């Protein structure tokens, strides 16, 4: 602690150092980790968890442990696909993404409204909501209980070929997918929302001291609805992109549970639950980088996937203990 003070280390600097140390260790083991092709694939891999982490971060700051973001996204994406297959076969991917995002936002707003209206703990409502939204898919069509087999409107095929950059390296072609750009646009939007808008600042106030926020006359309904809508929008975007990447070959049940790494990124990024502390876009970004690094590089280093989860677990524990230790010292 005193050491950190002497060098004026902010929490995010410490996180960045941890990231760099991990990177350095990996590079020493296998220099290929920072090869050009790997950096490109690293960026591509960052998108999905990055988007979800940004959505989650805002909700966590507000004191809501939301486990349904993937649910909003799945519902948004699948509803979009069903509607488009019936009515707008010729729809292009951009409209598809927008539609999914909007439906995702609506789902999230419903959840947020219930949490606001009945003053319920976010975790309870969102677990239920996540199940409802995911399982609603199985009610559609035949109701056979099978995983909804999905055929996407044909324009999806263009999705995987939109690259920002493309190059041939020997036998291999590296492609930087445009979704990276979407991630950065979302990161910017979240930064703008949480730093520059009154509602965005209000989420910190609500998360920090709910009682005082009530006394100050903060508009809870507006803040909740806007923040949930924004988070749902991002989730709808993320999952639609997953659907298109996989050509519809996506199992909603698997996707529903696919938020563990995003949650890990948010927590490693310093967001604390229930105190509204931490919760910065920069921290979350470092969290995303770190988690993605571990996920992608360990595969390369031949480490089995359970060991990856083990490492991520250690990192999370370290991060949480560090935060607790600091508060402990303060007392």
């Amino acid at each position, binding site marked *: 602690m005193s050491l950190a003070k002497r060098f004026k280390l902010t929490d995010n600097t410490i996180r960045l150092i941890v990231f760099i140390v991990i990177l350095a260790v990996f590079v020493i083991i296998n220099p290929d980790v920072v090869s050009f092709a790997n950096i490109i694939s690293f960026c591509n891999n960052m998108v999905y968890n990055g988007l979800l982490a940004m959505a989650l971060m805002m909700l966590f700051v507000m004191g809501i442990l939301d486990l349904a973001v993937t649910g909003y996204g799945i519902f948004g994406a699948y509803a979009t696909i069903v509607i488009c297959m019936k009515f707008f076969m010729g729809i292009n991917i951009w409209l598809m993404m927008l539609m999914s995002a909007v439906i995702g936002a609506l789902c999230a707003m419903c959840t947020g409204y219930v949490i606001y209206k009945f003053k319920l703990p976010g975790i309870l409502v969102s677990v239920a909501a996540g199940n409802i939204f995911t399982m609603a898919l199985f009610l559609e069509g035949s109701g056979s209980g099978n995983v909804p087999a999905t055929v996407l409107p044909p324009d999806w095929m263009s999705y995987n070929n939109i690259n920002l950059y493309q190059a041939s390296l020997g036998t291999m072609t590296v492609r930087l997918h445009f979704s990276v750009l979407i991630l950065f646009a979302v990161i910017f939007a979240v930064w703008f929302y949480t730093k520059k808008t009154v509602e965005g600042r209000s989420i910190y106030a609500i998360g*920090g001291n709910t009682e005082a926020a009530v006394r100050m006359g903060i508009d809870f309904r507006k803040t909740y609805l806007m923040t949930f809508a924004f988070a749902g929008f991002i989730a709808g975007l993320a999952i639609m992109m997953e659907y298109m990447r996989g050509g519809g070959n996506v199992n909603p049940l698997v996707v529903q549970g696919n938020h563990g790494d995003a949650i890990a990124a948010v927590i490693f990024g310093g967001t604390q639950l229930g105190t509204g502390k931490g919760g910065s876009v920069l921290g979350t970004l470092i969290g995303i980088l770190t988690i993605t690094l571990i996920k992608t590089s360990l595969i390369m280093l031949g480490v089995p996937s359970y060991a990856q989860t083990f490492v991520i677990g250690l990192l999370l524990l370290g991060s949480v203990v560090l935060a607790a230790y600091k508060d402990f010292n303060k007392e």
Partner: protein
Amino acid sequence: MSEFFLEAKGIYKAFGGIQALKDVTLRIKKNESLCLVGENGCGKSTLIKIISGAYKADKGQIIIEGTAYKEMTPQISSQAGIQVIYQDLSLFPNLTVAENIAMTYNMSKDHKGLFNEKKNVEIARKALDQINVDIDLSEIVDNLPIAQRQLVAIARALAQEAKLIIMDEPTTALTYKEVDNLYKVINGLKARGIGLIFVSHKLDEVFRIAENIMVIRNGENVIEGPVSDFNVKSLTYHMTGKEPEANPFQNVIDKNDVIFSCKEANAKDGAFRNISFDLYKGEVLGITGLLGSGRESLAEALFGCYPYRAKELVLCGKKLKIKSPEQAVKEGIGYIPDDRALKGLYGKAPILWNIISPILHTNSIAGFMLRRTLRQAAQTESDNLRIKSAGLDAPASSLSGGNQQRVVIAKWLASKPRLLILNCPTVGVDVGSKQEIHKMAREFAEQGIGVLLISDDLPEILAACNRVLVMNHGEITGCYNTNEITVNKLYEQLIQA
């Protein structure tokens, strides 16, 4: 227009069947500083909440600057210039100083467009300048010491263009020096023409700050007038409605039989230093001191909740080391905390569970509770302490303050302690129960339990204890037999800097 800034006339308020306020009237001029004093539970806080709009009065009228309001809401009172600084300060710990101070501006209707950091800093700077305080505006409030947070709360009230600031026991968490600083700020406010209602039950504060004093007792106006009309004794009389007991009861002490002895205890953070004392069999030993004198820390330390080192602790001839409350309980130390609701009572749980919680492990076989034995034990303690309840299964929160405190005491008695530490045991307890609790403390002592009573309530110390140790700036500065000292003399000892 009337000469008063605020008039609250003939206020009535009842909670359940209990009449909290009966025809209370409060008047304050612009630029006046009024101390609202009274014992805990006399209705001070209720009155404040009615003025601020948090509660609705059953009957009565509130007039602000000549305008009568039928219904008061927090918004109206805030717009009229009344700002309440609650004990918990209502700050946002995760936001910066500037954002906290300018929060109302950000939330106001005339704020349009994006969140404006520059404007926030400007507002905050202006407010802090008004009280001549310099705090880093970009610092997160959580990183500030409590005294500075208080100043931030005051600055925020000023930023909301306060004409009257109401402070609800603002000094509770401050050290002596910080309190001094706060007084300076408050005097500065007076000079700026801002009215002040200061809610307190600490007499030394009252005399330093107020121009006028208003006393409430049992929800009724008792007396009001300029501060020069009062002295500690008369104010105590008006607050309690009783002459301070002149001749305190003395238990018979066996000076050869030391129950508990503490030698050279030092808090790790220096909150108390070099504390040594012996507690004899049969006596109630009082420890008193002003806020920040270390008495609270000492009380918590002896129960293992506050880090400290002691050369030697002996309880009933056995050397002890107490590092945690678990150890303390095991060694037979019971602790009745000052904040009963937060630290001592499971409010929603039945009385039964409250009482038996410390004896669960001794009344179970292989982890299974002996329900009948436990219920009997609880019943016995409940009967002994004359707890008035609808039965053992009623939730503890349904009881009155005095009975709640008895439940806390019963809880510890059930575990048959050898040393009982009472930390301000009568806060928020009505006068009748207060005397009963004092009587109980002496009875425990007679039964051979060592009783340590820590309190800032001097009449209480004199009424319940045999001896009193006075703490000042973390050290014991005096020891008196309570039958040889008066409230006033004891008070003089306390405030010696």
